[in-house]
């Protein structure tokens, strides 16, 4: 397993995708090479100069650009900590612990029909995973869900990787309704990888079982340490309570008690 490290990063760019979402593009401050990062892994970011925020914030890895030595973090404003992160400016320094957690497992066969399902900020890890799948000769497709069309993030980037299906609650883009009702699920999917709000992932898990597809989900439990020391982020599994930060964040739904 790659050695974990606590490294100072420099914000090379902070793109405000919407009032809720920002994309942070970061590179190691000392110019050192990024460690190997697997799709599905996450980082723990120390929030700089922010009163009342002591603990790091776990953020999943949205993309890695080896050629530029940068890592992308998609930040959703959910409180003081993430607000501060989403408001960082180019040139600012942040300390990051990485790489953390396990990763999505590769599909059994190259010609498996693969669907990556994302909702809200949950699309973040799927971009990087989709890119890696494609690089390895797989043909991933995406199903992205959101409340409304304008909430669909990084669409153009996903489209560069594979076919994109989408569902919006108000029908303003793609099919109307929840992702679990999207027609693509009826097209004989073999492997599903899902990241999003817990209710959505649970609904996807049910659907996956129904259509007999393999299914992995990426959980976002609250964390303190991110390295398996505090035992705060546990999820109940068939093996009992396990740390999402070390045994996860990616779990095969058969390991969960959903």
């Amino acid at each position: 397993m790659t050695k974990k490290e606590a490294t100072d990063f420099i914000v090379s760019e902070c793109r405000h995708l919407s009032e809720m979402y920002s994309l942070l593009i970061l590179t190691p401050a000392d110019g050192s090479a990024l460690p190997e990062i697997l799709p599905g892994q996450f980082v723990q970011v120390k929030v700089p100069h922010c009163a009342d925020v002591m603990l790091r914030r776990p953020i999943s890895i949205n993309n890695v650009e080896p050629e530029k030595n940068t890592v992308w973090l998609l930040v959703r404003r959910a409180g003081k900590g993430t607000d501060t992160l989403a408001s960082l400016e180019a040139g600012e320094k942040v300390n990051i612990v990485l790489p953390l957690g396990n990763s999505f497992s590769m599909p059994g066969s190259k010609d498996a029909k693969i669907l990556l399902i994302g909702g809200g900020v949950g699309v973040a890890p799927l971009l990087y995973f989709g890119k890696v799948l494609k690089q390895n000769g797989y043909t991933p497709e995406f199903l992205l869900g959101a409340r409304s069309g304008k909430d669909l993030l990084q669409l153009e980037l996903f489209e560069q990787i594979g076919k994109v299906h989408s569902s919006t609650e108000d029908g303003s883009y793609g099919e109307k309704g929840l992702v679990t009702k999207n027609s693509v699920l009826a097209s004989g999917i073999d492997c599903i990888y899902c990241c999003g709000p817990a209710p959505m992932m649970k609904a996807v898990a049910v659907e996956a079982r129904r259509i007999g597809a393999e299914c992995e989900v990426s959980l976002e439990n609250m964390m303190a340490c991110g390295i398996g020391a505090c035992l705060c982020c546990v999820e109940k599994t068939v093996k009992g309570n396990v740390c999402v930060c070390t045994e996860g964040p990616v779990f095969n739904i058969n390991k969960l008690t959903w």
Partner: protein
Amino acid sequence: MVDLSVNIGALKLKNPVMTASGTFGYGEEFADFFDLSRLGGYIVKGTTLEPREGNPYPRMAETPSGMLNAVGLQNKGVDYFINTIYPRICDIDSQMVVNVSGAKIEDYVEVCRRLSSLDRLEAIEVNISCPNVKQGGMAFGTTCEGAAQVTKAVREAWNRTLIVKLSPNVTDITEIAKAVEAEGADAVSLINTMLGMAIDVEKRKPCLSTITGGLSGPAVRPVAVRMVWQTVKAVRIPVIGLGGIMNGRDAMEFILAGATAVQVGTANFVDPTVCDKVVSYLEDYCIRHGFSSISELRGLI
């Protein structure tokens, strides 16, 4: 060259910096971040006779300069520790201390008895102050009688260094400290977490599955320093100070209050390399202020 070494009873530490139980896993979780041999000692997570699943999620909430936790002593039990974990970590060149927890006195005793087989384990820390378990735990730590009973029983089963970890959720911690000293404890460590609670006002629900949990972090440091200062004056055995140490300065605050050693807890979650930095600070402080050994600074206010 500064002498940072200190003694806790018969236990010799190369420096006063230890890691608090439940915040440093089994040490190995931090091996990627710094050389663990830099530690004076590492206290592995609370170990019980039987495996424990701990409390349901959510177990953690962030509060101003602090955090609440309600892990509830999740661990795989003493036998798993002895057979699987101990062999993996016993070669770390630092003093290992096992934190022993239990619901019944007999459980504490049996855990100690089994740990006696570990030849590289020179000390245990008995936890009579966990706020997150229904029976035992803090119940023992909040009365002199309870604290004395556990100490007496464990003392008979464990002849190496015995540290008793005290609860701050009491009217007079010095009375508890005197009670465990009288029963043969070699040292006391304080403070464990303070019983606290937080509510999500939008959801109108407690933040923790257990409603209440243990408060740790810099928020509690002033209370911890005060209790250490009071306890040092009340007992003759060494006092190990902990509670909100985030950096070397904070550690020095406890040493000046009279602590022989310190434990770094919550800070390990914020900066996995913090203990390494604390050791460096203490050495630099001694040089900067012209002290040849850390012991000269103990209680120097």
